[in-house]
């Protein structure tokens, strides 16, 4: 079995390397991927269309807005699916609910009373969260955005759960709260899209929102809506990241986790 796997992988390796000779060389400005009309259009017109310097954020939240919206929905669905999978009691299964430990668990001597760990994390977590908010809010002027900032925000809660215990993290972000946060994130994104629909433009066509946002033209309305959209993404991503950790580390029971 291993031999055939190795054989198949080696043959595929040789084929792909052979095909790579026809690919454009590394770092060529006019390769088909880089010289195409679409990406050059993004680079040339983003500033004019939306006044957003970070082209990646502009493409993510504006030009490819549908993609990103359903990306957020994918994350949301994954979080819900993990909870559903871990908490179901399938018919005919011998599972008794709790995960049978392969190795008997050692008695935990570490319960948050470790001075250095808890003290360091106490200092670090607020700074991490502040940085996450900066990454979210400044995502269209510097590297960053909703996904990146949301992951950092979720990581700060996971750090709290690791450095103290899961209960401490759940006290601050309970199951009800993170589910609500995740839903509100998707709602914000879809809501901004529906709002532009109600004003008479296409779904997620932010330019029309200048009619209700004070003192903006179409381009600035796009910039502001991108910020709103990124905030929605960040809500969902941070909540679901923490939900994935909390559920996976406790087999869905949300107690006595790592």
């Amino acid at each position: 079995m291993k031999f055939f796997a190795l054989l198949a992988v080696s043959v595929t390796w040789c084929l792909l390397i052979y095909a790579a000779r026809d690919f454009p060389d590394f770092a060529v400005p006019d390769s088909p991927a880089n010289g195409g009309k679409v990406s050059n259009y993004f680079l040339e017109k983003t500033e004019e269309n939306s006044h957003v310097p970070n082209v990646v954020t502009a493409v993510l939240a504006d030009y490819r807005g549908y993609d990103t919206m359903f990306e957020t929905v994918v994350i949301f669905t994954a979080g819900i699916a993990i909870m559903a999978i871990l908490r179901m009691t399938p018919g005919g299964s011998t599972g008794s609910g709790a995960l049978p430990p392969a190795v008997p668990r050692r008695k935990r001597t570490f319960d948050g009373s470790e001075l250095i760990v808890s003290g360091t994390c106490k200092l670090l977590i607020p700074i991490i969260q502040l940085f996450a908010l900066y990454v979210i809010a400044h995502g269209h002027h510097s590297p960053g955005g909703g996904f990146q900032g949301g992951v950092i925000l979720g990581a700060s809660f996971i750090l709290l759960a690791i450095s103290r215990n899961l209960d401490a993290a759940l006290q601050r972000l309970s199951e009800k709260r993170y589910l609500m946060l995740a839903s509100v994130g998707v709602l914000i994104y879809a809501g901004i899209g529906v709002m532009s629909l109600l004003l008479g433009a296409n779904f997620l066509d932010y330019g029309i929102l200048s009619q209700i946002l004070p003192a903006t033209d179409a381009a600035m309305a796009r910039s502001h809506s991108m910020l709103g959209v990124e905030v929605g993404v960040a809500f969902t991503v941070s909540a679901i990241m923490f939900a994935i950790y909390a559920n996976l580390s406790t087999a869905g029971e949300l107690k006595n986790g790592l």
Partner: protein
Amino acid sequence: MQEFLQQTIVANFNYWIYVTLMMIGLYAMISKNNLIKKLIGMSIFQTAIILFYVSLSVKGTTDEVSIPIIHHHQEEAEHADHGGEKKGAAAAHHEPHAIDPTKYANPLPHVLMLTAIVVGVAILGVALAVSQLLYKDYGTLEESEILAAIKELPSDHG
């Protein structure tokens, strides 16, 4: 020989790395018996694809090409300062500028890979949840043992 190496390896080294990483991941997914090791292989595979896309977006060395964040507000502000007050800040804001796309890295692969990373996290999370469920039911994560246990079960679902 030197020329051959130059043309096939040095100029294309990003493809060599991505193909090798991808095949390591594929080998792990095919041949490993443990489900978690298969998932690790899947993650390596995804990482190889991400590396492939990001390496496609490179246009040159960092001296010539910058990240796709366009520095225009600054330049315009300086322009407005030096050029007197004949146009307001708002007017300068809207003046279309010629932007040289070869000076910035290609943004599109970055966007695509940003979403691919997110999908990867979602897949990995769901896969880990499913393997926890399997472990709960069968007490093992070895594929062969799970298959043997499934065969022993009476086929009550038909």
